[in-house]
């Protein structure tokens, strides 16, 4: 998220923020901004930063059920936890790597679909038509539902014997020879993907809808005068104009999807099937189910480093790619 601010506003990202307030004010009100920031600062330190430092410290310890009672006294183990986590020839590392790859694949597919559906829906609903308001309200419902309520409903629908999905696919449409399993085995990946897209696309819809309102109407009018049809207008004006919005949107969706814990946890419980073993659940399992908190912390730190790297590279690439078009 961090850099998204700058990215959303390239004029800031370029360098130091433009000095906009008057120099006079700065001199005698120097304490005020800090005072205003203080509550946020304290809370961020308390709830995010200090725990993160503790988490990093834990990752350097052999913290299991034998030492959890007094974790400060748990033996230091140096980088052992990290070594085990990235030792991809051994089972623990292998499982982590597999879970990581599953998560990457899942995230790419989910974000892609959320973006595609959300953008398409927003563009199609740009013009007024009868029932648009109702439809828009309906489309936002999945996003507004609490994760738990949404995911448990899908569990109900994905049941093998009594679920709606098999009832439709097998009993009514006869698409499969026999009812499929959605909550166990390989299909669980698609079940997870479906729920994730169902819950996530309205966010893309919402953001793109907001982004569309910022596109000046004159652009369309000019294009129409040039004889561009609706499809061409979408391709030549709408989509390019959405680029800055998309940059932020895709990143936010990526981070949320990648870190998603609640959806797989409600869908599959503590022992997620291999095909849907997302990294958060995997780490939860390593920490809380097998009681190896040191290893769990090490995996979390690795995950954080990965996300930082991806975010940095993503912003560097997308921002550079966008500059020339802005200069135009």
């Amino acid at each position, binding site marked *: 998220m961090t850099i998204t601010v700058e990215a959303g506003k390239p004029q800031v990202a370029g360098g130091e923020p433009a000095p906009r307030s008057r120099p006079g004010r700065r001199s005698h009100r120097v304490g005020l901004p800090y005072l205003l920031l203080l509550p946020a600062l304290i809370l961020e*330190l*308390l709830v995010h*930063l*200090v725990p*993160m*430092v*503790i988490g990093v*410290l834990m990752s350097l310890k052999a913290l*299991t*059920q*034998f030492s*959890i*009672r*007094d*974790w*400060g*006294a748990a033996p230091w183990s140096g980088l052992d936890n990290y070594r085990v986590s990235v030792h991809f020839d*051994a*089972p*623990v590392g292998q*499982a982590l790597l597999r879970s990581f790859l599953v998560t990457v694949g899942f995230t790419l597919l989910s974000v892609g679909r959320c973006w595609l559906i959300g953008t398409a829906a927003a563009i199609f609903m740009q013009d007024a038509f009868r029932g648009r308001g109702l439809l828009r309200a309906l489309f936002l419902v999945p996003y507004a539902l609490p994760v738990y309520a949404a995911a448990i409903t899908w569990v109900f629908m994905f*049941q*093998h*014997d009594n679920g709606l999905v098999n009832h439709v696919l097998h009993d009514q449409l006869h698409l499969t020879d026999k*009812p499929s*399993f959605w*909550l*166990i*085995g*390989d299909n669980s990946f698609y079940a997870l993907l479906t729920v994730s897209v169902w819950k996530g696309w309205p966010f893309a819809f919402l953001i793109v809808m907001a982004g569309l309102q910022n596109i000046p109407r004159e652009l369309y009018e000019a294009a129409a005068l040039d004889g561009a049809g609706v499809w061409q207008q979408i391709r030549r004006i709408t989509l390019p104009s959405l680029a800055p919005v998309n940059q932020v949107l895709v990143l936010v969706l990526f981070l949320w999807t990648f870190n998603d814990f609640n959806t797989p946890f409600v869908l599959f*419980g*503590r*022992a997620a*099937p*291999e095909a849907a073993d997302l990294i958060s659940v995997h780490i939860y*399992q390593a920490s*809380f*189910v*097998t*009681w*190896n908190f040191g290893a769990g912390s090490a995996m979390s730190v690795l995950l954080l480093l990965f996300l930082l790297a991806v975010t940095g590279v993503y912003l560097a690439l997308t921002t550079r790619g966008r500059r020339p078009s802005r200069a135009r």
Partner: protein
Amino acid sequence: MRTIRAAATGAVVMSLALAATACGGGSSTDGEGSNDSPKTLTYWASNQGASIEVDKKVLQPELDKFEKKTGIKVKLEVVPWSDLLNRILTATASGQGPDVLNIGNTWSASLQATGALLPWNDVNLAKIGGKGRFVASALGSTGAQGKDPAAVPLYSMAYALYYNKQIFADAGIAQPPATWAELTADGKKIQARGNQVLGAEGANVSENVHHVFVFAKQHDADFFTPDGKPDFTSDGVVTAVQQYVDLMAKDKVIPQGNAEYAQNQSVSDFAKGKTAMLLWQSASANLASQGMSEDRYGVAPVPVQSGAPGAGAQVDSMVAGINLAVFKNTDNLDGATEFVKFMTGDEEQKILNKAYSTIPPVASAQADPAFGTPANAILKDTLAKSAAALPQVADESQFETTVGTAVKALFAEAAAGHPVTTESVRAELAKAQQQMPAK
């Protein structure tokens, strides 16, 4: 740039200082028990009844009795199973927990290893009437061997075979199966009349472990070596796991749909008359709450390979149950001990075990006629003669997770119609074993 660096340094220093406080603070919570607040106790009960509210209705009158007797007010919280282990762990890590709590008896050794629970040495045990009050099998599941128990037994349960009398009569089966071969053969007759044969919770990690543990016993195999090392890939264990999964994969007595069951759906299926048989621990209260009256089902011992249930390879159940533990750092050590004595006393044992259709692990309470019904007689018999305790090792909870997950994956394979072979079973188990903590 300098400002950024300065601010960052400041933040890091402050974080480290706070973190250091957190570290240091950790040890201050680890004091031994005291009697600083002798008038109150906090008690975490596990969810034994049909719902948490039911549990409160069962337990509260008893706690009131205790308060009347001793003047100690017991604050009750019924913790759902889904949260219980996490709550115990966080309580352990923080030193902020209840005074007295219920634990699944299979967790005893794992929780014992944390050192957070009060050891029931002879002195402590003497305060609640001595070791002799408890049935031997129940005491076998209270912690690692050679160590003082980490908890005392509260409710005992055992697996039994529940069968639907009507379906059996319709299929012309006179007697419940005593061996797995008989069960499979009966299954054919039951299937011929369009009923499902045997219910199972294929996606429930703990249930899976309980069953494969018993199958392993029946093949003279163990998941741990005598010195406590995991040994999941011996021929006996592989055969045992395969035999359990084959009930679905090869013998087709467990319906494929059960591979995704993890929320007691198999009990519902049985109560509704969908399946003919169910392997469950002390299911009577559960079945009654779902509207299945006692005359509609029969109870028999879980099948064995051949012969009759007994010790060794004739084991047909794990020792299931709930133990009562005291947090070592309690502020009311005497009160907690008094409460344990109250809960394991004859009177309370009878009341509570009747309410939950469990068996009292206290010998003198077992004599009550309520526990002499045919169903309870079988459970009692099983516990006394043919039940074995799950491995009492510190890594037990990891064992449940890894092996239970492996069996879940195998069931998923079987349900998808993929073959389950000795090799695939061994491979899953090898993976499970490699995920166990290194020794």
